[in-house]
Each structure stands twice: as structure tokens, then as C-alpha cells.
């Protein structure tokens, strides 16, 4: 799951960056940037962090 979380963080970053040449619309770029940010945050704070918490030191 840690790898999935990291991959989500990367995809969320690359999505708005790679789409820059394909649209000139500010609204479309805004939406893509926000969606990308949400994907990255979910990947880090949700998926990756949960994977760390599964074996947290205070559970042992």
C-alpha cells in the first residue's frame, strides 16, 4: 500500500503538469490542478499514512 500511496502522490502532481499543453482554458487547468492535488493528498495522508499506522509503534 505504501507504493500505491507514493504512486498516487506522483500521479496527482503529473496530471495537471502534463495536461498544460493540451488546453488553454484557465478553468480546465484549475480543475485539473485541484483534482491532482486531491489525488496527491489522498495518496499521502490516506493511503501511505494508513500503511504506516498499520504497524505503528504504539500498537505493539
Amino acid at each position, binding site marked *: 500500500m505504501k507504493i500505491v500511496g*507514493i504512486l498516487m*502522490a*506522483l*500521479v*496527482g*502532481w*503529473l496530471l*495537471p*503538469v*502534463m495536461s*498544460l*499543453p493540451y488546453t*488553454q482554458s*484557465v478553468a480546465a*487547468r*484549475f480543475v485539473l*490542478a*485541484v483534482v*491532482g*492535488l486531491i489525488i*496527491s*493528498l489522498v495518496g*499521502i*495522508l490516506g493511503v*501511505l*499514512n494508513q500503511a*504506516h*499506522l498499520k504497524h*505503528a*509503534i*504504539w*500498537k505493539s
Partner: protein
Amino acid sequence: MKLWGQNKISWLLTVTCLLVLCGLGALAQTQPTPPPAAAAPPPPSTDSPLDLKPAAAPSSDDLAKGDPGGTKTGTANDVIVSDTKKGMTLADVINQAGQNRIAINFTWTLVTGFLVMFMQAGFAIVETGLCRAKNANHTMMMNFMVYGFGLFAFWVCGFAIQMGGGAPYTTLGGASSLNAEHVITFLGKPWGLFGTHGFFLSGITYDVGVMVLFLFQMVFMDTALTIVTGSCAERWKYVAFAVSSVFMGAITYPLFANWAWGGGWLSQLGANFNLGHGYCDFAGSGVVHGVGGITALALSMIIGPRLGKYTREGKPNAIPGHDIVIVLTGCFILAFGWFGFNPGSTLGASGNGALRIGSIAVNTMLAGCTGSFGAILYMWIRYGKPDASMSGNGLLAGLVAITAPSGFVSTVGSAIIGIIAGVLVCVSVEFVDRVLKVDDPVGAISVHGTNGLWGVLSVGLFADGTSNYGGSWNGVSGSVRGLFYGDASQLVAQLIGIGTLVGGIFTLSYGAGWIMDVIIGQRASAADELEGLDIPEMGALCYPEFVLKPEGLRVPSEVAAD
């Protein structure tokens, strides 16, 4: 002949009349313009000696009498003359004026850099005060040595990666040797990735302007590094800290700083993709604090929480720091140093709109003030007491948030940005502590990470379009405007910068941290952690005359009292 003789007089009369008429006509044409004044003397050649009598420079006898009023010091006598035989020329005066401008900018940039360097002391005592006494030596030593580790890595390669392709830096005389950016063409556009001039500050980068730029950028980088020592305090192995700091000073920080400040692809989003003025980060909410805060999050997740921070059910325990006095003193030192951080980021005080330093300093002051207001009010309302450490964090949060927009916003904008930051840091600390269950002893992730991102975003909202730093920013003419002042595309550029920090820099930091964890191990042993890291890691207690008690045990005096 007779005919000529008879008509001679009439011919002469006719010619005379014509000449008179022509003269009158010419006179009529020249009447509207005033008679020409005495011809102005030609402008002196830049090479010819100047008449210095009007300057009335004091004689050596006058100067020998002293100058208590300061009226005789700093006159024509003090202009450097290139050829004493010839005397002072216009060229001498012009060169002196140019050098004076650069000298003002050098002095400004160096002195503000010195202020930023002093922030290391502020960070050191804030973090140490917020940790327990048994880890004070270890925490202090991390903050002390991060300066050396970071400086060394930045001199070796960090500076070259960051600024090696960003010239010209006009306020510092150009620093033109920093002109080699590694650029790839991708999706039909140039993408600057990293600089390649300036390794070891040698070769053509052995240059006075480059040195000034290095000093200023180096202390910024060190600020980012010291953020991580706070979030990982009280359980980080010293050797892991050392390696991590060198990597961050050599690679992580310079890479993002190049993209934002060194002519890299983020700064060119405006020129290449019509997104406002590209990613704008005046003094580093994203570059410095965002990178530091995001790296702190990545390493804190890898290292895990301190023993005793969470119960078996996952409920957080408060672990108070040992000295609130040095915490708040450190906050004041940091607020003082921030007057170097933000106003100094003009890289000069003369020309190119640099007189906006007054506005930048006031914005910095205001946001810090409203940041502490926001935090103290939030804590007072929510918990019934004005919490001291969170008030300090509120001040820092306001300062972090105003760092990126300080050069672009009005005082009202800065006050709003600051108060939002003050509330945001409290909410974020609770979220990180209770929901994410990521242990951050000093609140560094919230102060620097969360509010660093908020500062970057606020440029895209509050930039008011009044700043003018030489007529353009990031190669796009005109002034930076945010969404509230008519440019939505600037907000998109800022969001892409935030996405790069969250997605790209986090991944890099996490990957490097994970590799270090596998090779050398990031976390101190449980026994060392319970004892406190001062003796196991550093070999000496910070407070040897204090009686330190292990958690869960009581000192003899307490037993006797029972």
C-alpha cells in the same frame, strides 16, 4: 548700352525691392520663434576633466577641523578619480554612481542575509524549548550542526543546481557567469530542470556578485533544513539526521528552488503556458517552508511517533516542552530575522522597484501580528486559555504565510493572510496529531508545511498588481495579480507549484528517507529514547545538574514526600 544705361537705375531698384521683399518674407517666417539664445556649450566629453568649483568640496584644512554636523563628509572629494593627472571626469562620476547602486544592493543583501543566519539561533531554542530536557543537548546539536552540514552540501553542489542557470541577477551586477541551465524540450516547450554553473563556487563563478547571492541563498536553504529537525526531534538518530541534512542541502531543496527561483520550469509557466507570471514565491513560503514542512512530514511518517505519544487505542498524549521562556524568546528572534528574510529578497535596495522594501517589511510585521492574534483567539475560545506555545506558533505561521506574498500584496491583504494562518496552524496541529497520528513535537509540519502552502496559494488570491520589480516578473511584463485583482491564471500557477511540493518533493524526500532507513536506520533505539538522547547520542547531558526522571518513575524526593 543706352538701353542698359537708361534702365540701369530701374534694374537696380527692382533687384533691391526683391531683396528687401525676400528679407521681409524670411523675417516673417522666423518671427514665431524667439531669437536664438546664446549657443549652449557642448556637453562635456565623458573623458574631459570636470569643473569642480560648483561642488564646493571642503578643503583638507576644513576637514582637519572635524565634521560634527556631517556636512563636509561625503563630497566630490570622495569620488574615485581614475587618472589623478587629468582630474575627475564625467566617466568617473558615472562609474561611481553605478558602483554605489551595486554597493547599496550588496550591503542590503548581505546584512539581510546575516539576519536570516541569526534565525538559526531562534529555531534552535524554539525547538529545544518545546522538547523535553532529556533531549535538549541532542536537539540543540541538530540545530547547531545543520548549519555546517547544509552549508557544505550547498557549496559543493546545491548552489549550482539551484542558481547555476538563472542569470542575470541585475540588482547584484548580473552575476552573469551563472548562465547554464539544463533545459529539456518536452511537449513542445523548454523545461529548465537544474543549473550547472557554480559547483564549489570555482572557475568563472569566482565572482563578487555570485558570492553575495550564495550567502543569501545559503541561509535560506539552511532555514528549510532546520524545520525537519523539529518534527523528528526526540527519536532521530544523529547520523541519520546528518546524512539527511546533507542530501536535502545538496539535492531536494536546490531542485525545487531552481524550478521556482533559478529560471526553472515552474517560474516559466507564465512565459510558456500563459499562466500569469508563472509560479511566484517572493521569499519562499513554498521554496523554503513548504519544502521543509513537506520533508518533515515524509520523515516523521517514516520514523514514527515518540514512545508514549499515543495510547494503545491511538489517543494522543500531550508531551509538554521543558522551557516556554526560550520558546517565546526564540519566536521573537525568528520574527526579527524575518525582516531579513522578506525585505532582503528584493536582493537590493536601489533600482528595479526595490524601494518596496518598506511595504514588504510592514507586511511581514502585520502578518506575524495577526497570526499570533488568530492562534491565541482560537485557543482561548476552544480551550478557555491563551496557550503560550500555540501563540508562538501563530506568530511563526503568519510569518511563514506572508513570505511568498510579501512583495505583492497590500497591508490589508497581509493582515488577512496572517490571521487565517494563525487559525490554520491550530487546526492543522490538531489534525496532524489526532487524525493523521503523525508525531510532530514542535508543530513544524503545520507551521511550515501547511502555512507554507497557504502562503503560496495566497499569492494567487491577494497579489494586487502594484509591485513593479523592473517592469516584469519571471520574464512576463507587468505586475503580479491574483484572482481577487483579475488574474485567475496566476492562481492556477500557484496551485501547480503546490502540487509539485505535495506530489514531487514529498516523493523525493520520502524515497530518500526510506533508503536511508533501510541502510543506516532512522530511529534511535527504544532504550535510548526512554533514557533521553543526550547521553546515548551526544555523550553529555544538556543540564547535568538537573534531576531528570525517566517517564513513569518518580525521583527520590517525590517518594519521600509521599
